[in-house]
């Protein structure tokens, strides 16, 4: 008899869908079918079953090839590397659970490391903007139940958050939005006529790198002030029209993505978008929300914040927490040559950092903890494969709107494979011994 597990949480993106159903074999070891997930989520569950998946730690040899080692050896190497470093970087955390993050932070505190998560290359600039001007936001259910104005700015949920539009933002029928997508006006701003923009009622093809100008122009238009004839490639008439459209809604939301966080202007783009949202609250109700990428990057920020006071790029090297992106942020630390060893977990900087930063990782003592083989594992000195969180082990995660959802275990991990928590727990014990900290 197979069994079907319901209310399963998809551990891929920040949409954190929690209505997945998974059919597993009667011995609880095999995933047979996955229902309700998008193409990416579906692939994620099935990949956990891959036969060629590494199940033992692998150490890089002098010739660049990898040799299997025991978890004991992996724990020892990792603990020694971290304990002996003067400024280790512990990066990632976004594809694991809050339990593992917590243990990792205790290690970081004991060794005086810098802890950073993937917001560094995703919504870090959003956090900077939030620190400057705040963020009027809401949970996704508010959008489903109330929103009649939806803006996607520099994000492409059709590709990056495939079920977002059907679960929360465009199509669902909510309490005050009984007509579903007909209750809503969709506005999209993007330099590319993306698959999301093709659904839009109104589309603005903003000149690449001029989001700040266009956002500020919308704010200017809201106040009825003068505008130049064209801003960021958009005629001023269309900007005044857009401002009116936003104002005339009962409840609006701006979703934004890496199209603004990674483009020239960065935090300032978000700052202007948040300020626009704040301005709109003088006329109607408006919220704004970042489209967070990794399924638990938000959780990493939350745990870091309650434990150390800052959501990412937290430098613990001096025995107290410091924070200043540009100084304490991974890319800057690597490119500037400020760190002397690199521990990565639940992320892939090898694939997602500019190559100059990756070169630095490859040149330093380095450990990569990841269920997959990735560019990071293949340039690190040690690769520690672990169980998939949300598939082979449960644990808490935070959705893009900060709602905490406890992910579920669906199947057992392969024989002998540790979870992130188990591996980190062992490293913590060893690090405390090496540092002479009382347990």
């Amino acid at each position, binding site marked *: 008899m197979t069994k079907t597990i319901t209310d399963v949480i998809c551990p891929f993106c920040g949409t954190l869908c929690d209505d997945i159903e998974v059919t597993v074999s009667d011995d609880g070891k095999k995933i047979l079918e996955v229902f309700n997930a998008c193409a990416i989520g579906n692939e994620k569950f099935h990949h956990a079953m891959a036969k060629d998946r590494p199940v033992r730690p692998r150490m890089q040899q002098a010739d660049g090839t990898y040799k299997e080692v025991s978890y004991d050896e992996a724990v020892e190497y990792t603990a020694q590397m971290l304990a002996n470093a*003067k400024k280790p970087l512990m990066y990632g955390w976004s594809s694991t659970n809050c339990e593992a993050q917590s243990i990792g932070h205790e290690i970081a505190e004991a*060794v005086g490391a810098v802890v950073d998560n993937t917001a560094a290359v995703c919504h870090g600039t959003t956090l900077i903007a939030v*620190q400057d001007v705040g963020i009027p936001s809401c949970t996704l259910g508010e959008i489903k139940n109330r929103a009649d104005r939806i803006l996607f700015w520099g994000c492409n949920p059709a590709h990056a958050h495939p079920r977002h539009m059907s679960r929360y933002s465009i199509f669902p029928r909510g309490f005050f939005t009984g007509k579903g997508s007909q209750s809503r006006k969709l506005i999209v701003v993007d330099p590319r006529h993306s698959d999301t923009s093709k659904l839009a009622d109104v589309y603005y093809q903003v000149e690449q790198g001029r989001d700040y100008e266009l956002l500020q122009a919308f704010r*200017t238009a809201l106040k009825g002030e003068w505008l*130049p004839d064209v801003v960021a490639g958009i005629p001023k008439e269309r900007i005044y029209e857009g401002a009116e459209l936003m104002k005339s809604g009962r409840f609006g939301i701006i979703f934004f993505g890496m199209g603004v966080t990674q483009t020239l*202007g960065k935090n300032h783009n978000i700052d202007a978008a948040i*300020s626009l949202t704040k301005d709109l609250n003088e006329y109607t109700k408006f919220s704004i929300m970042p489209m967070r990428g990794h399924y638990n990057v938000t959780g990493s920020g939350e745990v870091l914040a309650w434990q150390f006071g800052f959501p990412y790029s937290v430098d613990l090297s001096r025995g107290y927490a410091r924070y200043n992106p540009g*100084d304490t942020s991974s890319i800057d630390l690597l490119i500037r040559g400020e760190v002397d060893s690199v521990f990565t977990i639940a992320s892939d900087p090898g694939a997602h950092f500019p190559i100059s930063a990756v070169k630095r990782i490859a040149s330093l003592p380095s450990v990569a903890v990841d269920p997959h083989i990735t560019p990071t594992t293949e340039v690190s000195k040690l690769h520690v494969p672990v169980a998939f969180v949300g598939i082979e082990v449960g644990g808490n995660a935070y959705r893009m709107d900060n709602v905490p959802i406890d992910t579920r275990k669906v199947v057992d991990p392969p024989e002998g494979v540790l979870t992130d928590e188990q591996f980190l727990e062992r490293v913590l014990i060893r690090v405390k011994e090496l540092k002479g900290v009382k347990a």
Partner: protein
Amino acid sequence: MNTVTLTPKKQSDLYLEVNNITPDMFAGKSTEQIAALPVYVGNTEHPLGEFFTVTGAAGASAAETRIVIKGDSSRLKYIGMKMTAGEIEVEGSADQYVGGWMAGGKIHVQGNVQAFAGVGMRGGELLVDGNAGDYLGAAYRGDWRGMQGGKIYIKGNAGSDLGYFMNGGTIVVDGDVDVFVGTHAEGGTIIIKGNAKSKVGGQMVQGEIYVFGTIDVMLPGYIYRQELEKEVEGMKGKFALFEGDTAERHPKRKGQLQYAKLYLKQ
């Protein structure tokens, strides 16, 4: 005024955090006591004397103390942090946070400085012969109270986010600046003698920016008002006055809205 000279003995493998190199920390101390002050490499603490030979003598107070750092300081962070009086002369280039949160005294760097120089500055003077990095005279993250007073003078170029959340004081850059000048400023004066790129004066509430060269793209919230004759930093000329940022809220004084002023040299 007495002078303490720091001559480098060895380079640290990583960056060295020298927030204790200030006249305030040196004042009243012997060279031995100064050499015993802690500096930091990552999570390790070392006596200053491990990296520098300390010669000369400190004054009785910060105001009577001058510090000269010889050689290459390009891996020293936090030189002159929180200093309130006295002088620091850096003969080479310095890394980040030079004069961070300084309240008084004078720092002169003969080379370049990296990001966050003069961050949270309240008073005093910071003079750099070379270039400055990003966030010059800016606020610390999240703080709406940026540079409050004092003067920063850069003879070369400066990076992005100069005068971020500035409230007072003056920043002069002889060369060019990168994007975002005076963002969110509510006071103070910024003078750019070279060219600026785009995003100048964004979300600025009050304060003044002078640009002698060009601005690539003006922000939509700046309105041309008039042409004016002005004398700025000893130079006379005709300036086009723009007021803004109209996207932002502005306080009223005597019934009149108060805007930030952007002067563009004609």
